[in-house]
């Protein structure tokens, strides 16, 4: 296990899920699975409250928090939605999705609305994959504002790239 924990940090995201009962889940198990079509995936421990909400709902949002939201990211990862309203707890603002019913988080840099396409179990986690249906992004987005996480540590990416392959 020590060796896998030595992987570099990866983006940590806030997942919005639910319609009447809304919840925020902090997810470090997040990845892009396909670019065309744009498929992203998140994983949660199979036994968690978040698992139940992700099973019951067809849609979820992925919200990229900036580094100033670290305390909220930690709170949403430590508390369970079973006994806590995390929107109330953190003061984060739920905004109705444009093309899905899942709540988006206003304070995040990017809001991505996802329609679930499939799920599968791997070991102790259940993965949910979905197609991106809508994305809103903050003006002058800068990826070095975003939060990375792994093995108990929060980082940002460096402000300047080490090497650029093509102009953005």
């Amino acid at each position, binding site marked *: 296990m020590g060796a896998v924990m030595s992987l570099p940090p990866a*983006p940590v995201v806030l997942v919005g899920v639910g319609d009447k009962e809304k919840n925020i889940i902090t997810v470090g198990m997040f990845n892009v699975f396909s670019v065309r079509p744009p498929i992203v995936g998140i994983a949660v421990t199979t036994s968690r409250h978040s698992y139940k909400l992700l099973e019951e709902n067809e849609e979820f949002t992925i919200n990229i928090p900036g580094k100033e939201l670290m305390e909220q990211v930690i709170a949403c990862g430590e508390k369970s939605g079973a006994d806590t309203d995390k929107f109330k707890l953190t003061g984060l603002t739920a905004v109705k999705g444009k093309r899905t019913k899942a709540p988006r988080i206003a304070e995040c840099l990017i809001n991505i609305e996802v329609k679930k396409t499939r799920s599968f179990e791997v070991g102790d986690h259940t993965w949910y994959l979905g197609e991106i249906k809508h994305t809103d992004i903050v003006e002058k987005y800068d990826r070095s504002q975003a939060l990375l996480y792994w093995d108990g540590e929060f980082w940002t990416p460096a402000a300047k790239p080490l090497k650029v392959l093509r102009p953005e």
Partner: protein
Amino acid sequence: MEKSEVNPIWACRAFPAFPVVLATVSDGNGNQNIITVALVHMFSFNPPVLGIGISPARHSYEMLEASDDFSINIPGKELVEEVLYCGQRSGRDVNKFEDCGFEPRPGKKIKAALIDECAVNLECVKRQRIDAGDHIWYLGEVVRAEMAKEADREKSLMYWSGEFRVLGDVIRRR
């Protein structure tokens, strides 16, 4: 926050940065190939499962289809040129171990070689295959791992959307 709508494919390019690793795979006849992979993530902690996403257009795709295992090697930022080379060239045309001057070390539990110059080497045995769109994902259980004493997260190399980055600030230590 003031935001505007963007194309979902562009949105995929907007993510911060992902770890980039060197994966290796053997063809079973003594040929070893290296592929640069930015689509890599942990899939399960217990058992430890790592997955890599590969485009079917890649030479490594055929090798991975035919193989039972692969290795994941974590490069430091000093290997950025080698990482780029292994991502841009095809194993059909070049021998990437030779061209990069990498020392292939035999895996103890797998047929794929390990890259000595990387501080962490993970031996993975294929367990699941996921067809996710334009990438095929191979999920492998980590059956053995080696780590150099000098392995250091601060030297990590990240990549996304045409940009190699190193880590910036640590916001909170454990």
